[in-house]
């Protein structure tokens, strides 16, 4: 069984020497980071943003849990969902590896995990990203 990313260019793949990272991009003009990486800065419109691998860890800001599979979702329920602040200067919306909302709190340390979310029709494991509460692991 092979592993494929849910979408190209979002995160590093297993075995990458950089470890689990999100592939964001930084603006050469305003220095703002954005994700997923694009050529043009969404904050100031400058072209030539350059990829930066970031987000190995962060701090949880907001969280909830999704209990019913939304349209198109192919992973298990319930799953955690939240906003994580990364020390590089990016605030990101992400799946959380824990859906135990009563154990989550503001400012909690979380680590990036790149893990299989579902198996696609070709039999490949599809990798996606999530942040895992450090205490819960």
């Amino acid at each position, binding site marked *: 069984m092979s592993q494929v990313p849910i979408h190209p260019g979002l995160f590093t793949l297993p075995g990458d020497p950089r470890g689990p990272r999100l592939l964001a991009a930084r603006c050469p003009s305003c220095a*703002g980071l954005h994700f997923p990486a694009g050529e043009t800065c969404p904050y100031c419109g400058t072209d030539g943003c350059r990829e930066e691998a970031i987000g190995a860890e962060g701090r949880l800001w*907001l969280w909830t849990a999704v209990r019913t599979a939304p349209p198109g*979702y192919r992973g298990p329920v319930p*799953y955690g*969902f939240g906003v994580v602040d990364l020390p590089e*200067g990016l*605030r990101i919306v992400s*799946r959380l590896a824990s859906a135990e*909302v009563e154990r989550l709190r503001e400012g909690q340390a979380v680590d990036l995990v790149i893990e299989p979310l579902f198996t696609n029709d070709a039999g490949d494991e599809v990798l996606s990203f999530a942040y895992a509460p450090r205490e819960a692991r």
Partner: protein
Amino acid sequence: MKGGRAVHVAGVGLHPFGRFDGKDVTRLGQHAVREALAEAGVGRGGFGAAFCGTVYTGVAAGHKVLSGLGLSGVPIVNVEAGCASGGAALSLGAAAIASGQHDRVLVFGMEKMPRGIIRSSFFPPWCEEAGLSPAPAYFALRARRLMLESGVTREHLARVSVKNHANGVDNPFAMFRKPFTTEQVLASQVVCDPLTLYMLCSPNEGAAAVVLSCEPGPVGPPVRVLASVLRSHRPGSVLGEHTPMSGLPGAEPPTPTETAAREAWEQAGIDPRDLDLAEVQDTDSGREILSVEELGLCERGGGGRFVEDGVGERTGRLPVNPSGGLLSKGEPLGASALGQVVELAWQLRGSAGPRQVEGARLALGHTVGRGANASVVVLGR
């Protein structure tokens, strides 16, 4: 409106909000359009343009409504701006009157929403596959923030739902007309913590229409559109209805509701403290509290206190969603903003029946959603 001719609401029409199997969206729209035109005493040739707000209806939605009534021939503009679609259509219509381009226009909105969690063509498929698209989860994150920063409790969230459902009992155009207790709201199924089922509105079906004119209409005391403003988001915030996947920590650009509200007070030449009632976006209980904060109806961070003090109750200083809001009416996207305008026109005419806010002279309508788009409308008499 400021800098232009007066814009009057000369006629209104409303198809109830609910589920109407076997009745297509074109017929829903025609129901509201016929009523509004009849009230305004306007027929074919009586309006110079038509603006139709809808999201899920597809190609030439407004054309189909007017073709079926023998009313085509004028410019018909179909407008999509998410939950603010009707507000967007109204702003175009009001500008056409204020500027003198037309003396009378027809503005309507309609929707027949798919059932269940709303699927949107907004997200790329991989976002849906990865679980990053569910609307109620974004609502829940905003509600969580209110709990962290605005002193909002689960009981406050429940109380908003209790208030709106109680108001909806008196609204024959609402889908849900049953009161709930705080305990019942809190005990209903958890959808996305902290939001429970009864704290969320249901997508549904309905239509609303208004005739705007440079002169007062034949029914009731004259009601004027003092402001009709549409704004989109500025980049940076992850919590906006444009639902980006990332933003900048600490970046708090003014939200589209805030920028629309500021422009609306300016356009109308009013102080928002003088408002007598407000119909605001309440897709979920938390959204109503956030709307109140963003509109400046209370201070930022004061949302919990606003609910605690009962300011928005029907008997409070500023009744919020006396119609029952989307929580009791349900949300037909293209019709929701104009549904507010119809309700507010009735309130200002003094014909809102058991929902009447006594002596209402200045009223606010607000919608915000996908895009992001926010619409703020001020009506007065």
